């Protein structure tokens, strides 16, 4: 072992110290950060006669703990590759993509090693050729979410700066983890600045002081870590438990937070959550257990909603007995829950972050979120201790200190496609010395495609959809209609895939293999770190390095943008210099460097780099924040991190208190309504300014298109799920699979890659030397099928087949299975896109259908399958 030096870095799973063997260019260990004695003091909250202050240490998740094994992995791409059979000047053999030709590189079957010069020359000359032959808008970049961490290196930053200057358009991300809140709850209360998610400011202290019960509904903070915040909120939930706050969990799966905290667990039949809510509300309405004054003043459409719940319109009162029939939860339990809820000061933890994740990503996501808003409204949302709070945000740190999240665009300053326009772009770019990079293609008047329809772009040649990207500028923006090809634009000729796989994360994902096996896609370029997922479909592969091999800067759990105040998940605002811990392995390069080299060949190096390297941009970003108020650049470089001091004098304006008290909104700016969103600067963002259980924006939409939208009616209500227990195909596919965000990996980060995580018993199971993805199945369902613990099974429906390892459990009821989304591995046993996958891409079985007829949101959180024992190729 050589000389060991301590560095700092960060990831979606928390900031870390990194001990590096500088002589051997090797990471020795990665570990949580103990704060130093001279770091600022931590906050203290007083509640019920006790004082609470957080541990002086950061937390991290398993995937971050094991990052070393992802950096030093035999699955790393260490030099540029060209697919055997791909000749840019001759036969391209597009139909052979995904089927490795013989005689290639032993480490990367089907590929031959080429030099960086050759790789960059092919890619840049193809870009120039395509622009000259076809015109603008024929090259599309397709990045994954959560690829690497850092404000400079994130896709909104370095990629957008290159993309916009190079004239490349974009495969827009849908609001993938907000979905139901975005397409549904936005029509109840607005909050477009959070894509329909509720604000969470200062709700930790409010809960500690005032609440007596929390209902976690499709909420598993111990699994999803809010988002990016590791186990920062774990200690805070433990304090709540110590104060005697009752905790009830509603989730088809007995989730990991329930393991630690649940006083009671309910597992509604998948997709019927909104029915359970309706039955609870029936008890409240018939027994007078709701806040009548609040409802009279602050809720719009209550009479119509009440008529629906009482069955005055459809003749079907939504009684607890009706609820039992829909959800499988006994009527007496529904009544007890409803009464106890109303008796207590109850926080509704709907989703894992204050909205977000879980049931909102399912086919019934819109009804669920709107019903969650109704539950909160009827109990007096915003009054002390009564709110919509998931326990992950709202930590009482300094909300006034400015440091951006990755969604604020970093070095791109792209105000159309990131949150740069909120604040960062004005702080970052003077205009004279340094300029942002707006897009001329990825704007509503340009050409672009939705990520969920990339396969159709090539396989069908034309698509139509509503809503561009994250569509958070207004409530109505999601109604706008788009088409590909856009008028005056050519068809796409090059796919530039950047980052992690999609085949494990989107819907009905055999499509994402088939999209490559067509002559309609003349060239697929991959800029990737690992040989995994669909990378082996690329024609040219450019090896990128991890963020442990380059410079960057970031704050713990801070993405900002559509998760306003996301930094309030952490117990300390901790900003890390992401040091270049080791030199890039092999011939891999940072994304910035790869784009710089392409920029040279495209004649745009000057505007792209402005003469700066990555550390130069890190310094420019440092100066654009409030960091210089608490440290100097030299001190920051030396120490590697800075902790923002506690701010005792900032106002504690609790989320929604202003609304409950009929005042002007006074919570912190990010995520707030903009002046034009409200009428006379009062109330919610809705037309009435109230919480709309009868949505006027949806009424307007129906009027404008001249038809009813039965998938999203203006009145908040339960709709029987089209992918759940009452689904018509249930006979053929009798098991409903819940497929939430994964526990150990972060999407595909951490999984596969020959990393440590594959050894976690609850992540993958090794059978005959192969690590299989897990499906959890109830004891009774398993017995009926002759399936035992650890057996290999085939889960299938009309969309495909996936080979998985069975875990037999009582953590799901009969009829329900559980298997996380996001396998990084795709390993078809036969023809790609048309044979069983033993990599574990359960998303092959999920739907591509949008969450609502007039939306472009995914609905992959649950789906129906049959499961049988897998005997290995005999089916």
């Amino acid at each position, binding site marked *: 072992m050589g000389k060991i030096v301590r560095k700092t870095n960060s990831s979606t799973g928390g900031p870390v110290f990194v001990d590096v063997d500088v002589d051997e260019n090797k990471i020795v*260990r990665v*570990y949580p950060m103990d704060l130093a004695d001279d770091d600022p003091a931590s906050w203290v909250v007083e509640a019920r006669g006790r004082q609470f202050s957080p541990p002086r240490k950061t937390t991290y998740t*398993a995937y971050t703990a094991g990052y070393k094994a992802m950096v030093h992995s035999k699955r790393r791409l260490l030099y540029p590759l060209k697919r055997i059979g791909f000749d840019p000047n001759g036969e391209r053999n597009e139909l052979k993509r995904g089927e490795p030709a013989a005689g290639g590189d032993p480490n990367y079957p089907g590929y031959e090693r080429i030099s960086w010069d050759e790789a960059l020359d092919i890619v840049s000359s193809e870009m120039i050729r395509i622009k000259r032959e076809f015109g603008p808008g024929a090259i599309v970049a397709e990045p994954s979410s959560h690829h690497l961490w850092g404000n400079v290196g994130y896709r909104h930053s370095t990629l957008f700066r290159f993309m916009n200057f190079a004239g490349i358009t974009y495969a827009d991300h849908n609001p993938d983890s907000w979905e139901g809140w975005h397409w549904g709850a936005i029509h109840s209360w607005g909050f477009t600045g959070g894509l329909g998610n509720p604000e969470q400011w200062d709700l930790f202290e409010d809960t500690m002081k005032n609440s007596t019960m929390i209902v976690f509904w499709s909420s598993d903070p111990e699994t999803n870590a809010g988002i990016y915040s590791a186990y920062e909120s774990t200690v805070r939930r433990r304090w709540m438990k110590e104060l005697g706050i009752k905790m009830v969990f509603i989730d088809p799966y007995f989730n990991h937070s329930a*393991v630690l905290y649940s006083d009671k667990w309910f597992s509604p039949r998948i997709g019927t959550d909104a029915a359970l809510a309706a039955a609870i509300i029936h008890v409240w309405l018939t027994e007078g257990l709701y806040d009548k004054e609040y409802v009279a003043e602050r809720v719009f459409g209550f009479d119509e909603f009440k008529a629906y719940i009482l069955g005055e319109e459809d003749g079907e009162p939504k009684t607890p007995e009706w609820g039992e029939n829909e959800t499988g939860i006994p009527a007496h339990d529904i009544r007890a829950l409803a009464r106890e809820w109303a008796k207590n000061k109850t926080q509704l933890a709907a989703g894992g972050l204050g909205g977000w994740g879980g049931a909102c990503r399912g086919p019934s996501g819109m009804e669920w979120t709107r019903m969650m808003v109704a539950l909160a409204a009827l109990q007096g949302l915003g009054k002390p201790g009564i709110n919509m709070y998931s326990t992950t945000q709202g930590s009482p740190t300094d909300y006034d200190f400015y440091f951006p999240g990755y969604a604020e665009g970093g070095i791109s300053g792209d105000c159309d496609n990131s949150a740069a326009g909120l604040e960062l772009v004005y702080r970052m770019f003077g205009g004279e010395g340094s300029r942002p990079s707006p897009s001329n293609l990825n704007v509503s008047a340009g050409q672009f495609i939705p990520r969920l329809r990339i396969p159709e772009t090539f396989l069908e040649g034309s698509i139509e959809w509503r809503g561009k990207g994250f569509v958070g500028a207004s409530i109505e923006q999601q109604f706008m209609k788009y088409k590909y090809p856009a008028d005056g634009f050519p068809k796409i000729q090059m796919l530039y895939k950047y980052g992690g796989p999609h085949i494990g994360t989107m819907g009905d994902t055999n499509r994402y293999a088939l999209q490559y096996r067509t002559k309609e896609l003349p060239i697929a370029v991959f800029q990737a770190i690992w040989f995994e997922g669909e990378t082996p479909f690329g024609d040219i592969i450019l090896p990128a390095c991890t963020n442990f091999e380059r410079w960057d800067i970031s704050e713990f759990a801070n993405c900002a943008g559509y998760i306003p105040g996301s930094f309030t998940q952490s117990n300390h605002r901790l900003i890390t210099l992401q040091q270049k811990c080791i030199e890039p392995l092999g011939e891999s390069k940072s994304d910035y460097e790869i784009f710089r080299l392409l920029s040279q060949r495209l004649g745009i190096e000057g505007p792209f780099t402005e003469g700066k390297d990555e550390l130069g941009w890190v310094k420019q970003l440092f100066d654009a924040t409030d960091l210089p108020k608490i440290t100097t650049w030299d001190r920051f470089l030396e120490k590697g991190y800075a902790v923002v001091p506690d701010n005792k004098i900032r106002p504690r304006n609790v989320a929604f208190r202003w609304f409950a008290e009929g005042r002007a909104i006074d919570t912190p700016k990010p995520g707030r309504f903009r002046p034009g969103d409200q009428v006379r600067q009062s109330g919610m963002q809705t037309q009435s300014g109230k919480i709309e259980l009868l949505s006027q924006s949806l009424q307007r939409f129906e009027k404008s298109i001249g038809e009813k939208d039965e998938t999203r009616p203006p009145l908040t209500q339960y709709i029987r799920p089209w992918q759940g227990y009452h689904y018509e195909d249930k006979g053929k596919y009798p098991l409903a699979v819940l497929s939430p965000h994964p526990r150990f990996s972060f999407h595909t980060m951490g999984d596969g890659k020959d990393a440590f995580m594959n050894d976690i018993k609850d992540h993958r199971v090794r059978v005959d030397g192969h690590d299989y993805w897990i499906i959890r199945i109830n004891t009774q369902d398993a017995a009926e099928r002759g399936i035992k613990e650890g057996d290999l099974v085939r889960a299938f429906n009309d969309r495909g087949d996936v080979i998985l390892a069975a875990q037999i459990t009582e953590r*799901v009821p009969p009829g329900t299975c559980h298997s996380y989304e996001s396998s990084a591995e795709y390993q078809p046993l036969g023809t790609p896109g048309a044979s069983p996958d033993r990599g574990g891409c359960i998303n092959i079985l999920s739907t591509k259908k949008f969450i609502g007829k007039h939306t472009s949101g995914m609905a992959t959180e649950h789906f129906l399958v049959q499961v049988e024992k897998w005997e290995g190729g005999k089916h």
Partner: protein
Amino acid sequence: MTQQRYMVIDVSLCHDCNNCFIACKDEHVMNKWLPYADEQPRHGHRWMNIQRKERGQYPRIDCAFLPMPCQHCENAPCVKDFPDCVVKRDDGVVLIDPVKSKGNKAIVDSCPHGAIYWNDEEEIPQKCTFCAHLLDDGWSVPRCAHSCPTGAIRFYTLEKDAFDSLKAEQKLEAYRDETGRSPHVYYKNLYRYEKSFIAGGLLKGGDCAEGVKVSLKGDAAAPEQTTNFFGDFKFDALEPGTYTIVADGKDVKTVTIDASLNVGSIEI
């Protein structure tokens, strides 16, 4: 006497996050800490082996996890049987000498907990070292304890007497130590993994019966409890046997259990 190293694991605080398991791999895979330990193989070893236990039947279940490192026993069979290869240090840490133990696969079988693993490539037995190389370098805790987000894994450096008081005070137990191996790893709330419960819910007139006094009699008595707002009760830390549930002074159900049981809803 030299201060001793002890690990205390609270089963009720572990929710299988696997930080300890991965931190252990991070420390020992790709790193040689000679003479303490050779490199751990990239895959296969579980120096911190997290075992899962589900109790009960849907919907009244719970779940416990038992992180299981080498127990660093006072009277360790591996030390006793292979004194040339395995040593117990003055601070209680048991270490297998990676040089002297080469080729000696019998050491693996000497551990009643299966906590010793065979390294095929190096042909050596390997196990948890309490990260002794770090403790000797000034770290106060091993990597597993340092990475634990719930405080389930705690590490102490104490005189034996002081630890004995802690043990009594916190009701710590050794895991399956019938033969007096006297480990340096102790567990809190071990019943969550080792014992059984009887749980159910009471109904009165079709509604959940809150506030009913319930007790248990039979092979063992349990203190009286009051049903919660769902009418639920749960008697825990039970041995296999026959028990009668008594509600409001009346016998309502008798069950014989060899594992945890959800008796369902009972109308009283």
